[in-house]
């Protein structure tokens, strides 16, 4: 049986099912990260002293990563725009760039993490690093998850474009919504952890 309302919109919601599904999922993600941000506030306000992020973390590397992730959001939305223009070649190019930017972000985080572990600054070192590793670790998992989905649409999943380009375009839009959310979370994580 075909999955209903993948292309056509439902009359009651005015949306296809994938769109409403991804937004409900993102709503749950907001609450997940919200709980951790609330924990951050609780731990920070309850602590007699709190280090400035720049004293513990590498601000230039994180700034570079911010630029990388923002760039990946642009290439992601350009990948979707290319499909709307029915330019599959450009879609592949932009989606490939998005995956590459995601990989660069993770490699930079790997070097940041490695440095901390090398000097004995693990999550148990202090409260600041505990919440830092929790928040950035969860965010990295999201980056990785988004990369896996995007890689699927870049590779084997792209076969759908030949038979149903509108459905494929919708699916890329939905994975893009997740990717932009991941970028959005980083936009708040960056000043919270590194600059304040």
């Amino acid at each position, binding site marked *: 049986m075909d999955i209903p309302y993948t*292309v056509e919109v439902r009359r009651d919601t005015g*949306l296809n099912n994938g769109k409403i599904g991804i*937004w409900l999922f993102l*709503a749950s993600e907001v609450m997940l990260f919200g709980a951790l941000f609330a924990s951050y506030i609780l731990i920070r306000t309850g602590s007699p002293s709190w280090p400035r992020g720049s004293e513990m973390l590498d601000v230039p590397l994180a700034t570079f990563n911010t630029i990388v992730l923002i760039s990946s959001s*642009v290439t992601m939305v*350009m990948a979707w725009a290319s499909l709307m223009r029915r330019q599959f070649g450009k879609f592949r190019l932009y989606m490939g760039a998005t995956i590459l930017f995601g990989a660069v972000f993770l490699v930079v985080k790997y070097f940041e993490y490695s440095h901390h572990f090398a000097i004995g600054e693990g999550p148990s070192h202090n409260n600041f690093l505990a919440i830092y590793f929790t928040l950035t670790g969860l965010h990295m998992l999201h980056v990785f998850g988004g990369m896996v989905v995007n890689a699927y649409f870049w590779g084997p999943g792209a076969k759908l474009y030949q038979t149903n380009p509108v459905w494929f375009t919708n699916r890329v839009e939905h994975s893009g919504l997740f990717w932009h959310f991941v970028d959005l979370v980083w936009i708040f994580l960056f000043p919270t952890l590194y600059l304040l």
Partner: protein
Amino acid sequence: MSDHAADHSADDHAVDIDKHVRVYITVFVALMVLTIITVAISYLHLSVLPAVTIALFVAIVKGSLVAGYFMHLVSEKKLIYAVLALTVAFFVVLLALPVLTHENGFWIPEAAAPAAHTDAEHK
């Protein structure tokens, strides 16, 4: 609606895509500039309150640009807005809880610590 009709709708959208792409590039430039501003302000070493206020303000502007234009929230359906309104309400409550449950900016009031210490000594 048939696939053919949906295709036609997608073609109509494609006419507007050029405009959208120009907006995406503008938003990208704005996000880069705001990122530089965020980092530059951090080097001013402001005290905590103005630093948090400015950093959060810039982050909210950046987040709004991403949500509004990259996630197309500027032209989304009412149901999505309803879902997000509910999400934002619960999110605010979640963040407000730790803020509202302590006084004077400190989780444990300074006077409480010696009192607890004295009680322990009596035992």
